[in-house]
């Protein structure tokens, strides 16, 4: 067997640490057996380095690999796809460390470490992960330096410093490449586990689902306003509407209506009549803003009513919300203008009216009767709605995250018995009663509120801001939004969930919510949120569109030639900058004024042809001038005396005076030498 390559001790420690840290983020997601196997393999390698154990033989290695493949197959059901693939890669990577027989193998491990590190970004792209990957990259570089500098005898800290310097020097170049290298849409679609990838509002709603969402403090999206930020009571972020009620669950639309062609209008499509009427009636936009959305795995986007956008691939739906053509599987940003329409501009189609008044044929009879009775008493739709809202406000209804379970007739049971509920209960009951009275009504789902972050002057909307409210059709005004939850708990809209719940003697979300109330924590979370915001906006949100926008601002016109030139210039500029910095760091201290003056005199004498060598001392200059230009010898003698005072004698004379004299004498000498022919010339 070939002689075993011994990784230098310093390099080995960095390498093992880098391998461990590169696999760590994957291990956290991986099945349990990997959490055990990978560290055990690395320990094995460590003991081999220490001479306690031997490298495994061929048979053991092959067996381990087969077992690893089978175990991965067993855990994920497949070897394909990012999750299973990365899991297999990580195990194989750990096994590879037990196969470092040659220097070449060590290089393979280093390259693999970089690759495994890169796969971290498949699952996590937040700033913290990026910093972590950067740190591990420094370790990998330190190991690489250590392997190559085995003989130099530098300490392992020296290797780490050098590795860090290498990574730091690469950073500016990386930024140039990040900005300038053209971005292509992904060649294939990374299908992450679809169930896990979907977050936020779903396309249907049953009691208890929104309140579940409200326990999460995960960010949903951020909004950056151009100009004024709307007050809390106007921050209703529409995501989708639920028009179909099956007695328990509200969902988007009845099956027979989903295929309506004119429902969503995408920018490159023909304009349906309802869209045309909206376009022609809109005046000045009320709000302009940019939404930076987290990955949801769904198609609907969030915006204030009534939204329009010029983002490609995003259309406006008939129920006044934004819909993306594709599922949002990475950070997504879009610019929105929201308009207000005081009067109905679009009609209510008959199919639409029928959909929005339809109720299950049976159940909840008490509520139906009550609604019909009150509607008759009220005389008009508007009066009926007002009475309902008043009723919610005055009767002892409770706002709670933990409502009791409801019986089969959920609305009856809620209104007449439990009277404890979350926004979905109130909205559901409210919409039900409107429909029972014959008023077209639907549920709007989205988010309400959002926390203003003063640092970035942006709104942060989190999952616990999830909310549903109701929209009713009033013939004169069109679709009008009503929020029954606001009638029960007005503080929900003004101050958010925490305040509303505590008004009703309840605390939201336990520990997390308590922390949120702590001022120090809240400032800290504002800061991290701001960091995250900037990160999503400038790094994750930097896609084909924003690149095109920035490049056309930078280059005027985007074409391959210009990008190539910009790449070369910027890349070269960065290299020059780093080089300049390195030179500047090793520069010698600057010259004093008299040293500069000496240099000027030296140049003068050189120009006049006085024979001087590098090492001619000031006295030597005098002697040389005395030979070449006897008439200037006196001046040079005086100059030399002044210079000696400044440079070599104990300080005593006034430097300013000496300086003026030096300059004066040099000028006089220049004149004298110009006037007088050189002695040598005369001789020649």
């Amino acid at each position, binding site marked *: 067997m070939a002689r075993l390559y011994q990784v230098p001790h310093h390099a080995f420690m960095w390498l093992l640490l880098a391998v461990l840290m590169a696999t760590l983020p994957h291990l956290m997601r991986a099945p349990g057996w990997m959490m055990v196997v990978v560290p055990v393999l690395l320990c094995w390698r460590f003991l081999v380095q220490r001479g306690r154990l031997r490298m495994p033989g061929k048979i053991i290695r092959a067996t381990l690999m087969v077992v690893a493949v089978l175990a991965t197959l067993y855990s994920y059901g497949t070897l394909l796809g990012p999750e299973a693939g990365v899991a297999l890669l990580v195990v194989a990577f750990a096994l590879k460390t037990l196969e470092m027989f040659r220097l070449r193998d060590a290089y393979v491990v280093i390259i693999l470490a970089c690759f495994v590190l890169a796969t971290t970004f498949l699952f996590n792209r937040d700033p913290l992960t990026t910093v972590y990957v950067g740190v591990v990259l420094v370790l990998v570089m330190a190991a690489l330096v250590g392997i190559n500098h085995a003989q130099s005898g530098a300490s392992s800290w020296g290797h780490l410093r050098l590795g860090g310097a290498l990574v730091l020097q690469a950073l500016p170049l990386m930024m140039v490449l990040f900005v300038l290298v053209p971005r292509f849409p992904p060649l294939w679609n990374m299908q992450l586990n679809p169930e896990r990838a979907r977050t936020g509002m779903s396309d249907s709603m049953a009691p208890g689902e929104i309140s579940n969402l409200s326990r999460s403090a995960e960010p949903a999206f951020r909004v950056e306003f151009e100009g004024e930020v709307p007050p809390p009571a106007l921050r209703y972020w529409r995501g989708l509407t639920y028009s179909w009620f099956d007695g328990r669950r509200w969902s988007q639309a009845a099956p027979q209506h989903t295929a309506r062609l004119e429902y969503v209008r995408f920018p490159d499509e023909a304009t349906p009549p309802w869209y045309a009427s909206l376009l022609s009636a809109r005046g000045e936009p009320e709000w302009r803003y940019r939404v930076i959305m987290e990955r949801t795995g769904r198609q609907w986007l969030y915006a204030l009513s009534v939204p329009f956008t010029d983002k490609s691939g995003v259309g406006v739906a008939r129920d006044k919300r934004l819909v993306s053509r594709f599922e949002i599987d990475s950070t997504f940003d879009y610019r929105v203008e929201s308009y207000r329409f005081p009067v109905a501009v679009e009609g209510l189609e008959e199919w639409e009216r029928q959909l929005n008044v339809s109720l299950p044929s049976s159940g909840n009879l008490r509520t139906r009767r009550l609604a019909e009775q009150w509607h008759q008493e009220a005389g008009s739709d508007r009066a009926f709605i007002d009475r309902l809202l008043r009723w919610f406000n005055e009767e002892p209804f409770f706002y709670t995250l933990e409502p009791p379970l409801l019986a089969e007739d959920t609305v009856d049971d809620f209104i007449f018995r439990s009277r404890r509920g979350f926004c979905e209960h109130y909205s559901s009951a409210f919409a039900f009663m409107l429909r029972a009275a014959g008023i077209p009504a639907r549920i709007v789902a989205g988010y309400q509120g959002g926390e203003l972050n003063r640092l970035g002057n942006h709104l942060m909307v989190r999952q616990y801001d999830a909310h549903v409210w109701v929209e009713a059709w009033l013939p004169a005004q069109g679709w009008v939004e009503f929020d029954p939850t606001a009638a029960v708990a007005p503080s929900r809209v003004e101050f958010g969930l925490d305040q509303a719940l505590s008004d009703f003697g309840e605390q939201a979300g336990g520990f997390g919510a308590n922390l949120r109330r702590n001022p120090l924590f809240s400032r800290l979370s504002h800061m991290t949120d701001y960091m995250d915001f900037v990160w999503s906006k400038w790094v994750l949100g930097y896609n084909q569109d924003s690149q095109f926008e920035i490049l056309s601002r930078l280059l005027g016109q985007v074409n391959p030639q210009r990008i190539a030139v910009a790449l070369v210039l910027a890349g070269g500029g960065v290299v020059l900058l780093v080089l300049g910095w390195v030179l500047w760091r090793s520069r010698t201290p600057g010259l004093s004024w008299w040293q500069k003056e000496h240099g000027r005199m030296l140049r003068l004498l050189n120009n006049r042809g006085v024979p001087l060598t590098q090492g001619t001392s000031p*006295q030597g200059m005098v002697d040389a001038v005395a030979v070449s230009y006897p008439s200037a010898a006196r001046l040079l003698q005086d100059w030399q005396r002044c210079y000696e005072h400044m440079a*070599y004698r104990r300080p005593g004379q006034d430097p300013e005076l000496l300086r003026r004299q030096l300059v004066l004498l040099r000028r006089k000498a220049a004149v004298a030498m110009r006037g007088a022919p050189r002695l040598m010339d005369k001789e020649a």
Partner: protein
Amino acid sequence: MAVAIVRAVEAVSSVVLGKEEQIRLAVACMIARGHLLIEDLPGMGKTTLAHALAKVFSLDYRRVQFTSDMLPADILGVSVFDPERREFHLRQGPVFTQLLLADEINRATPKTQGALLEAMEERQVTLDGETRTLPEPFFVIATQNPITQAGTFPLPESQLDRFLMRISLGYPSAETERELLAGSDRRDQALSMKPVLGVAELMQSMAQVEKVHASPDLIDYIQRLMAHSRNSGLFTAGLSPRAGLGLLRAARAWALLAGNDYVTPEDVQVVLGPVTAHRLQGSAGGGPESSTRQLLESVPVVRRH
């Protein structure tokens, strides 16, 4: 004080004719507390110069003629048994003096050379486990024949480094030669010279040397000379920090002899050859003198950038 020293130089010049530069260097070497190596062919006046220097400063001096069968005890001294008092007592060797003339030092074996050179560096002698300090001041003026001569043991670099300066006298000029031939024996003249300076005054000028001002610009020049000797590839090995310190001390002494209380680059340039030539070996062949001249010419006196 400087005047007195200058008179000493003049007095020596009246005996050693036509070598004023070398004499000044020798005196500068002494007041810089350095040991002096005079290297030349036999009969060039090396010993006469050494005698004259001893006389003119009224120093207590001994002369040792080095031979190849000499032992360290011949220089340092030896313990002898006194039968009357029934104990050993040290019979001090010639090294216990203020000025030691080590004539033809390269004729002795390395062992004997080593014993002397150790005494030069430490200014003390250890005999039978007992350390004895040498008198103050303590100078060694060694003379040697060029190593091309038969029957010599060349001093190794490490020992050459102990000498602050190495000078050579060279043949006299025609006029000096005539004067030399017409006059009486120079060695006798030297031995009958009257002292010009007392030991106390000599010590005083040695203290004065330390106070001569060396400006940052000058220190910078010396540093660049040192660096160039190491980095330029002109020499097989660069100058040691000891050589740098010696160069600065010698330049100070030279400045004092010139009547200045500050060092100028010219002072450095004058003493550079004598101080460094014996410590440097040109990598491209060529004599040590041409190497130091090259060093002088390639290092700018004033920093340019």
